[in-house]
């Protein structure tokens, strides 16, 4: 399926809406990592181009898309004491009206990601997304191999943290396969 920009916006807006509905902080890191999980773990065809960046997988294309959504009042930003969170904008009703079938098709995937990621801090999100990145991009699928890869690009992450992140990602993959 080739997804259009409006459908991409609808899925991102649904993600933000569900996250905020749980009263969880939804900053840019949360959106970036959640979309990465949607694409790579849940196979939602959002087709944003991700690369391994300073804080784990990051898409400049998604960043630009978020700005467009803000310009179109589909998202808004609310400053909080510890950073700024995205919130659904006025035009979300337009999106929901015109992309109802897209939203219905991917609701379960968004719920899964929000259930597993919402409320986690940016450092934890970075570890998890990096673990998923190496899970889908490296040949060595052992827990040790992937943990070592994480440590190689992010020396500030401890062995134990890297290993736990890989194990957590594996758990979710099993949960989805079941």
């Amino acid at each position, binding site marked *: 399926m080739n997804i259009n920009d409006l459908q991409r916006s609808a899925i991102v807006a649904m993600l933000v809406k569900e996250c905020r509905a749980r009263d969880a902080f939804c900053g840019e890191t949360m959106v970036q990592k959640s979309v990465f999980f949607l694409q790579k773990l849940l196979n939602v065809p959002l087709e944003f181009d991700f*690369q391994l960046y300073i804080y784990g997988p990051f898409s400049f294309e998604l960043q630009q898309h978020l700005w467009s959504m803000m310009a179109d009042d589909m998202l808004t930003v609310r*400053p909080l004491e510890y950073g700024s969170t995205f919130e659904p904008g006025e035009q979300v009703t337009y999106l929901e009206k015109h992309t109802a079938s897209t939203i219905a098709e991917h609701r379960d995937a968004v719920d899964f990601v929000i259930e597993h990621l919402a409320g986690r801090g940016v450092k934890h999100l970075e570890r998890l997304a990096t673990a998923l990145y190496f899970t889908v991009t490296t040949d060595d699928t052992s827990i040790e191999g992937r943990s070592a890869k994480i440590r190689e690009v992010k020396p500030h992450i401890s062995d134990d943290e890297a290993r736990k992140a890989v194990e957590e990602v594996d758990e979710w993959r099993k949960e989805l396969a079941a």
Partner: protein
Amino acid sequence: MAKHQHEIRDPIHNFVRVTADEVAAINSRPFQRLRHIHQLALTYLVYPGATHRRFEHSLGVMELAGRVFDVITHERSRHPDVELFPDSETLVAWRKVVRLAALFHDLGHLPFSHAAEEQLLPEGRHHEWLTVEVLRSEEMRQVLKAMMPSPDPDLVAKIAIGPEKWGKWFGKATDFNEWDLLMTEIVTGDAFGVDRIDYLLRDSHHAGVAYGRFDHYRLIDTLRILPHPTLERPMIGIEKGGIHAAEALQLARQFMFLQLYYHHVRLAYDIHLSEFMVQWLQTYPTDVEGHLRMTDNEILSEIAASARDKDRPGHDSARRIARRGHFRKIYEQNALDQRIDPNAVGRIAAALRKELGDAAVREKAIPPKQQNIEFPILLDGGEISTSRAESTIYAELKPAAIGVVLIDPDKKKDAKKWLLDNKKKVLSDQMELGV
């Protein structure tokens, strides 16, 4: 005795001070080429004063890069929680790298800057890709090698283009450590990058558009390397006392985009120019020699010839540029219509094409640029806050998206009447957009 410090007069910064090594860099053939690349393409056809070139802009960026580097690395400005400063000898070498990266950041610009970049370069590539190719050429390697100390061309290139583009084309974004990120932020940064500071001031000055001015002296004096309250790495932020200068920079950027960079007549000329260049060149020479041979002069000379001869490629576009026969604005994005349909521009352009034919209609949608950038602010009591928390302007300023529909001047009257009668119907007649 040879002079070690040279001064170049400049209308924005009074003097640009350069070392002997930098003079050699300025005298290099790739840098001299920038004397023949207009900073703002054909904007001078709308704002007659805007005839300045990438050459003087690049000198200005280097001057500002040196000033910012000196302010943020000065011992008095250092925040106690930021411990990544190298020793003084290494700092001297870094100052040189950052100034050269600033000087060379535009070497890859095609004729008329951004006008036809998207159409002429291979998909997904931008001028920064050519900047690196030029810096890696034997000619530039020799220029850098002759310096004392001699900077690594790849390090200069990395700092000049930043992690996003470096990661996409030449290596990995993770090739940048925390210090590298700060150094490239001086040149390319969204919040306080000196490229942006110089082009706003310079374009404003030459175009005669006052909106681009702000107190950059105050701004630069209050810049600091600060820990970020949520991110793990330090960033370039500002002391609380500089917040109004920073806000003025943001507003200047917003106004300059709306007033100058995306003026509808300029957008029309950009379209005609890129169509001409594509028809005349077909593909752009992306080898370094081919690139260095192409300047605005070659294009202008061909535009003049093609405008006179209907059998030459690009005749129609050339004629429109040479004889002011540019397409006229028939519709512009506005909040009222956006509320009915966020894609109002696209829908109206499609309807007009159906009515008047593809050749009579052009559409230009500019993706929004981020405005409400988040950076750390050092409060008077020593705490760190953020721009969005401390500034209403940073919290509230929405990215500005621009879209226009342009029409062949011969069809403007018909199009105007048709739009008046049909706009409501076009916008309300929306198809199902779901999967």
